[in-house]
């Protein structure tokens, strides 16, 4: 690689000599820094040493001493490959070696004089090179020198074209900051025009933003000084308007430790923008992938997973590679028809959507997965398997199940409502059925009386008997109607968690709670609280008490409507439920009457609710009563016999403000 341009040539002028190497080597090679200093001086020493060894070898074979010739060759070679200073150094070394090693026996004067030939030779070489206008500093190994003027001009023109082609920005710098020359590409990059350049207003130091300046000074300038070149790196320049342009630059000084050099500059704006867009889109997709519960999967033609994104199935995605989805499914046996259809779809290589199945998820816990996929075919149309997405829909499925359960409960409560309506109906029926019985008695007695007459009044007796028939029919119809009403099974005897049952009731009453702006506080005993009985009936009682309490509180200010529902173990084998409201309370004289049938303080009350509730609780072997010893409002308490397995006695408190 040639060093370029020669010293003394004004870089601003267009007649700078260009190395012929430029025509064969790339720009990058052209700018590759030259050999460092130490090897060049080392080569001077080595060449002189080689000359000495060759000369001594000749002597040892009895041949005449030829150190002078060898040394001259060594000096010339050093000049050629190592440069001026190493060449001079080699000449001096040869002088010393000749004086002290080759001819040690000669007197000092002749030693010095005969050795002077080497420095003289070096001087001649310097003069010759100067005369050729070519001061060779460092010589690359591959360079062929074509010292003819024609070639020089040709290569110079080519280099000039490279600069003027403005494919990349190129400028020539001075270490102090001045930009001596720059091509249009560079000027465009930084938005300056040629006038700015000519008038010397552009300084690369000023173009460089402060944070880059310090890096320049700390790192790049020392490297440039040491090696004469800089590997391409990214930095920023200020444009004339103060905005920044990201660039990739590479630099070389014209000589080692030189004060001038050339820099090529690539505008990275577009690339940066593209990189930014790419980064953003990557981040976007990463965000999507991270936030979405969806995962991607691919299966091979044998339906075995070949790819699963990390979030697949919540965990252990990698362990599922090589298995089929039905290997993990938990509902293959329970829902064979569903799986048969899926297999048929896969076998027919049709796309499928929203296939929901249950599989073992994290720690083997059941997990519901919704999968969609489409078949994949290669360029030749061969089936390669399927790919698609999967989603964890466990929460949704669970919510649906919960919804179903609540619906069922709702229908049960609707039935309970019917039951309570039926309670009222029963009272009416009792009234109804009392009627035909009374009538029957009357008619029988009347008939007997008419028979006892003398003579018996048989017409009246006949009438009475006919009416008796009617009465019997009527009673039968009432009984039939009653039988139609009561179709549900007799009260059940189940073990159930009272806390759970009450929570459900609160959930059911929530619309009413919210509508009335009631704050509900639950103080339920921690853990399960098992009692025995008919869960639905007990819930009916609880619902009745809660709805009564809410209704009672309609008389007080909206902010003071507090409903406290608590459960506790009153005795080792009994559970106490309290429903306390902040309403106006119960008149002490009415505290027992509220449980009487048909007694109601409400305009639309049937007077049946508490009466039925009490009979339900009594049927469970418990007690329902109203307490007066509270500051305000009423508290209804009921006890139920609890089962033996008691849970811990600590309370869990929670409050919710509707």
């Amino acid at each position: 690689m040639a060093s370029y341009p020669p010293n003394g040539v004004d870089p601003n002028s267009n007649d700078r000599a260009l190395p012929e190497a430029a025509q064969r080597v790339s720009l990058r090679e052209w700018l590759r820094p030259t050999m460092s200093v130490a090897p060049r001086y080392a080569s001077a020493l080595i060449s002189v040493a080689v000359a000495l060894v060759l000369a001594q070898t000749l002597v040892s074979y009895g041949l005449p001493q030829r150190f002078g010739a060898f040394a001259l060759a060594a000096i010339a070679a050093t000049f050629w490959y190592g440069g001026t200073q190493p060449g001079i150094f080699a000449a001096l070394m040869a002088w010393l070696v000749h004086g002290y090693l080759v001819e040690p026996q000669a007197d000092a004067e002749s030693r010095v004089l005969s050795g002077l030939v080497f420095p003289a030779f070096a001087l001649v070489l310097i003069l010759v090179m100067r005369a050729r206008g070519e001061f060779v500093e460092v010589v690359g190994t591959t360079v062929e020198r074509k010292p003819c003027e024609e070639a020089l001009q040709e290569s110079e023109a080519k280099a000039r074209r490279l600069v003027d082609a403005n494919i990349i920005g190129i400028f020539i710098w001075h270490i102090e900051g001045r930009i001596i020359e720059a091509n249009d590409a560079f000027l465009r990059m930084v938005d300056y025009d040629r006038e700015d350049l000519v008038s010397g207003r552009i300084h690369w130091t000023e173009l460089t933003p402060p944070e880059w300046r310090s890096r320049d000074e700390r790192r790049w300038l020392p490297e440039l000084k040491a090696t004469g070149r800089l590997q391409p790196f990214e930095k920023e320049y200020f444009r004339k308007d103060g905005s920044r342009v990201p660039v990739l630059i590479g630099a070389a000084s014209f000589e080692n430790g030189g004060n001038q050099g050339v820099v090529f500059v690539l505008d990275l704006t577009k690339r940066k923008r593209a990189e930014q867009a790419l980064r953003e889109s990557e981040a976007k997709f990463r965000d999507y992938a991270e936030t979405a519960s969806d995962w991607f999967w691919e299966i091979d033609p044998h339906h075995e997973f070949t790819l699963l994104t990390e979030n697949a199935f919540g965990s252990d995605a990698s362990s599922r590679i090589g298995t089929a989805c039905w290997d993990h499914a938990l509902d293959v046996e329970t829902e064979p028809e569903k799986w048969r259809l899926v297999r048929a779809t896969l076998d027919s290589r049709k796309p499928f959507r929203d296939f929901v199945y249950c599989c073992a998820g994290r720690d083997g816990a059941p997990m519901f997965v919704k999968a969609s996929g489409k078949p994949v075919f290669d360029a030749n149309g061969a089936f390669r398997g399927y790919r698609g997405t999967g989603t964890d829909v466990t929460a949704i499925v669970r919510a649906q199940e919960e919804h179903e359960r609540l619906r069922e409960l709702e229908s049960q409560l609707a039935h309970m409502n019917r039951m309570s309506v039926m309670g009222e109906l029963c009272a009416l029926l009792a009234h109804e059925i009392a009627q035909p019985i009374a009538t029957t008695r009357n008619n029988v007695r009347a008939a007997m009386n008419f028979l006892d007459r003398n003579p018996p009044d048989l017409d009246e007796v006949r009438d009475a008997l006919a009416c008796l028939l009617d009465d019997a029919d009527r009673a039968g119809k009432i009984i039939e109607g009653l039988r139609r009403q009561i179709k549900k099974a007799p009260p059940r005897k189940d073990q159930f968690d009272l806390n759970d049952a009450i929570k459900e009731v609160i959930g059911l009453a929530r619309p009413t709670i919210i509508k009335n702006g009631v704050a509900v506080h639950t103080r339920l005993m921690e853990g399960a609280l098992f009692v025995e009985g008919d869960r639905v009936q007990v819930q009916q009682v609880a619902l009745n008490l809660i709805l009564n309490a809410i209704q009672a509180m309609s008389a007080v200010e909206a902010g003071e409507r507090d409903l406290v529902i608590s459960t506790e173990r009153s005795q080792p084998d009994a559970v106490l439920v309290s429903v306390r409201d902040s309403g106006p309370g119960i008149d002490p004289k009415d505290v027992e009457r509220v449980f009487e049938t048909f007694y109601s303080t409400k305009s639309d009350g049937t007077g049946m609710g508490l009466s039925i509730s009490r009979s339900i609780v009594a049927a469970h072997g418990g007690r329902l009563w109203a307490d007066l010893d509270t500051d305000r409002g009423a508290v209804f308490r009921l006890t139920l016999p609890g089962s033996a397995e008691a849970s811990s006695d600590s309370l869990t408190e929670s409050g919710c403000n509707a």
Partner: protein
Amino acid sequence: MPDASATVLVIDDDASLRASVARLLRSVGLNVHAFATISDFLAADLPDGPICLVLDVRFPGQSGLELQRELAASGRQLPIIFMTGHGDIPMSVQAMKSGAIEFLTKPFRDQDLLDAIQLGLARDRARLENDTVLAALREGFRSLSPREREIVILVARGRLSKQIASEIGIAEATVKVHRSRAMRKMNVRSLPELGRMVALLELMADKPQRP
């Protein structure tokens, strides 16, 4: 026991029960008038002779208890026997307090009903007799001259003839003449009886008179 003049009034919206009660009462020789509604009853003319009312507590529209209150307010003290389908204690207490003869829960024993009716009729008969006596008294009192009335009232208040004479400024003998004439007119034989009669009349005078 049959009393040809006694009538039992049965009010019940249930036709078959109404008919059966009526039949039962007829079978023991009672006169029976049956009504389906209270308004039918109120629209009808009440028969002469002792009366007893048998009615259901629960009526669509107007309840038996309300009828009882209305009758009491109008001064017509009819003996009432209530029938009910439910054993409604508060209601029965209220009915009994307001003077009901009996409160029967269906299905009731016919003898209980008949006993209650006999009691009711007896009470009404006594009332009727009382009414007759009072009517006669009132008639007698009305036939007195103003002077005789004045003297009778003063006698009933326990004044002696001499005191009366000085009080109204006539001779003692004249007082005695007026008194004996008045006693004859009112068909009273002794002075204490006269006093009792006057007291009854004064009591009656405080109350609204049934036409």
